[in-house]
């Protein structure tokens, strides 16, 4: 046990206690947290800073507004319903169409009008928010993911998570939904996490349930060596989020839309540690390097360049496919 402890320490793996004590508590002042705890606020901030986000169709804030939701939705076939203060993907429903008095969820399951109303009411009463406080429901554009992901994700939308420390992108992964994760991009629930080479934007080895895998379990396509489109833009958005919120340590979640390109979904002030498993690498050395260099990096472009220079794994495509 002690040996494993030391091995993790040597590999620079960040534990939950260390993340809280050294990074989130130290670099994320509490007064800044409301900006990211409420996704609606994050959206507004991003709009103001010209960072693209999925378009918001409407917000339900009060119980009596729920009845009018069907009118609002009449003109949309595709949409996503999410709690403004939800965490870990809880309470999010994705719809792809409507059919006589029902909405069709992404898996094909039909949801009646009253069932949707009940779900909205649950969101408002705080079922998915931290501490059970009153919440809002956001109805927004459903992302149509980039074709590059078609072969390596099952139903849901794959998303890219980049950890940004003091404005420097330090580690990234893409989360690929599987049949088991029910289309959700959550590693706990059985989604695949694939690390991304910061320099090239290609996926590294992928991890599914703590095991290294090479192929998507549902589609059979290789999951490593896939080039993430618009990688430089993704890095740029992630780095800009530091100025957006002022949070020193945050996780930036983005998606790639077929038509709209990279869209920022949400920011996370306490990003999880699984990204280390997906990358097969510890965060600590990169965080230390970023902390040491941060004061000498004047702007977003410099920080992105630093990240690409320092945190690339320097593997060629051939290396990866041979691995």
């Amino acid at each position, binding site marked *: 046990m002690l040996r494993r*402890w030391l091995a993790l320490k040597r590999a620079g793996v960040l*534990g939950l206690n260390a993340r809280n004590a050294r990074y989130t508590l130290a670099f994320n002042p509490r007064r800044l947290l409301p900006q990211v705890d409420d996704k609606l606020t994050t959206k507004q901030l991003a709009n103001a800073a010209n960072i693209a986000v999925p378009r918001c169709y409407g917000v339900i804030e009060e119980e009596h507004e729920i009845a009018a939701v069907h009118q609002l939705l009449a003109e949309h076939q595709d949409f996503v319903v999410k709690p403004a203060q939800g965490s870990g993907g809880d309470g999010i429903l994705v719809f792809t169409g409507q059919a006589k008095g029902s909405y069709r969820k992404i898996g094909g399951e039909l949801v009646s009008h009253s069932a949707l109303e009940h779900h909205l009411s649950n969101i408002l009463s705080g079922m998915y928010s931290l501490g059970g406080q009153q919440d809002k429901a956001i109805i927004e554009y459903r992302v149509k993911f980039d074709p590059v992901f078609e072969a390596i994700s099952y139903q849901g939308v794959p998303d890219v998570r980049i950890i940004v420390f003091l404005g420097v992108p330090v580690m990234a992964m893409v989360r690929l939904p599987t049949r088991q994760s029910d289309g959700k991009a959550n590693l706990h*629930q059985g989604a695949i996490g694939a690390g991304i080479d910061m320099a090239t934007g290609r996926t590294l080895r992928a991890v599914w349930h703590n095991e290294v895998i090479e192929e998507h379990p549902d589609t059979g396509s290789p999951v490593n060596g896939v080039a993430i489109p618009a990688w430089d833009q993704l890095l740029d958005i992630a780095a800009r989020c530091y100025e957006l919120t002022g949070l020193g340590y945050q996780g930036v979640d983005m998606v790639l839309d077929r038509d709209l390109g990279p869209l920022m979904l949400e920011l996370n002030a306490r990003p999880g540690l699984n990204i280390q498993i997906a990358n097969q690498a510890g965060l600590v050395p990169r965080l230390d390097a970023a902390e040491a260099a941060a004061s000498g990096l004047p702007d977003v472009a410099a920080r992105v360049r630093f990240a690409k220079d320092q945190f690339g794994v320097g593997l060629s495509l051939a290396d990866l496919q041979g691995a």
Partner: protein
Amino acid sequence: MYQRKTEAHLYWLAGGLAALGFGLFLFKLLALQYPLAAQQQSALWDIEVKASFLADGGPAKLSLYIPKDTRRFQLVDENFVSVGYGLATSRPEPNRQVTWSVRRAKGQEVLFYRATVRAISSASEPEAGERPEVIEPELSELQRQAMETLVAAINAESADVATMVSLLIAKLNAPEPSQEVSLLLREERGGKARIRVAVKVMRFMGIPARLAQGVQLKTLSRKVPQVAWFQVYDGRLWRSFNPETGEAWVPDDYFTWWRGEHPIASLTGGSRLQIEIATTMHTESALSGAGARAVALAPGMSLISLAALPIDTQVVYRILLMVPLGIFVLVLLRNLVGIKTFGTFMPVLIALAFRETQLLWGVMLFCVIVSLGLAIRFYLEHLKLLLVPRLAAVVVIVVMLMTLITMVSQRMGLPQGLSIALFPMVIITMTIERMSIVWDERGAAEALSQAMGSLAVAAIAYLVMNEPHMEHLVFVFPELLLVLLAVILLLGRYSGYRLLELKRFKALVGGK
């Protein structure tokens, strides 16, 4: 830079608290000689009677039976707390009684009686006495006939007083009593009917007999129930008999308080009389010596001794002071081991409930009620209720389930089931709600693993909180909580791995 500074600050604070705590502890231990371990065989008991009533506004008088020396227990000290009341003690044989009276009283009145008794010998019969006059009971013709039949039957089968009594009690307790027994029992009103009938039968036969009442002395009891048993005079001693079994024996810790059928207290000029009896084992006998030393050596010190508090408050604090230990265990298990639980402090509250139910029963009752509640919660999900009414419905259902379990276990003769009422029902409800959400969103495995984690933490917290040595230590040396606080503060900056993370990140180091 700023981090260095906070960290230094923290170390100084924790160091200061720990030093203060340890310093006080050592001072009390070495200079004042407070006892480090609880004395197991302490023979002193503190008894406190709290009598409260609602005075009508005019004169009020409260009479209360009080203990006297017996062959088993010796009265060491007693005092009366009754501001504004006149006080008189009397000896209506074979009892002692105190009478408080006041010219004018209105509203809630509270009077206290406190006594310290020493157990002197446990084996002998509690009381000797001169042969009392036997008062023949008044009986109707029908009762007299029944009595004669019963006495004839008993006389025919018994050799001496002891067999006579056990036969009598067996007849009285028979599941299907004979005609004459049911007749006699029917005529008796109020509790203790069997003992009272037994007294009458013995007296009818010309043998002095009486009802003895008192309490069972237990450590840490705030509301001690009154118990009654049966005594028969054998020419020299009053022999006690167990009214359930007829055995010529009652437990050593039965404390004879008064004799006769009357209730412990009677009141005129008021209503809603309530009598609460609290007892505690006087483990502080060495402690009181230390307390006296403290008054002489360091007058401020007795301020932080809990032994000066009234007994029933002491009982509360004995439990309350264990809560920080439970919390500490929780911090260790969550932040050093990494066990996930429902709600931050829920396991500690469950552990408190385990104190009353005992561990095994507590765990079983908890599982039963949570799984039943969860099943109903899943059913409610179909009804699409709004959040707050749904939670309210679950609370109501939890309360009903608790009642049901109590009634069923009563039927099945499992007294442990009765203590389920001590579970904090709101906490249980929130557990059920959280569990069902996790179940829906993250799957059954995650929900069950978190539930198991909570239960494991509760069980471990219970074991620590119920450790008698710990309890004594914290009660006598509450300053040790400062040391605990210091450790908790330090844990607040602990940034090492959690034990379960070693497994979680196994893949990162090629896990062996």
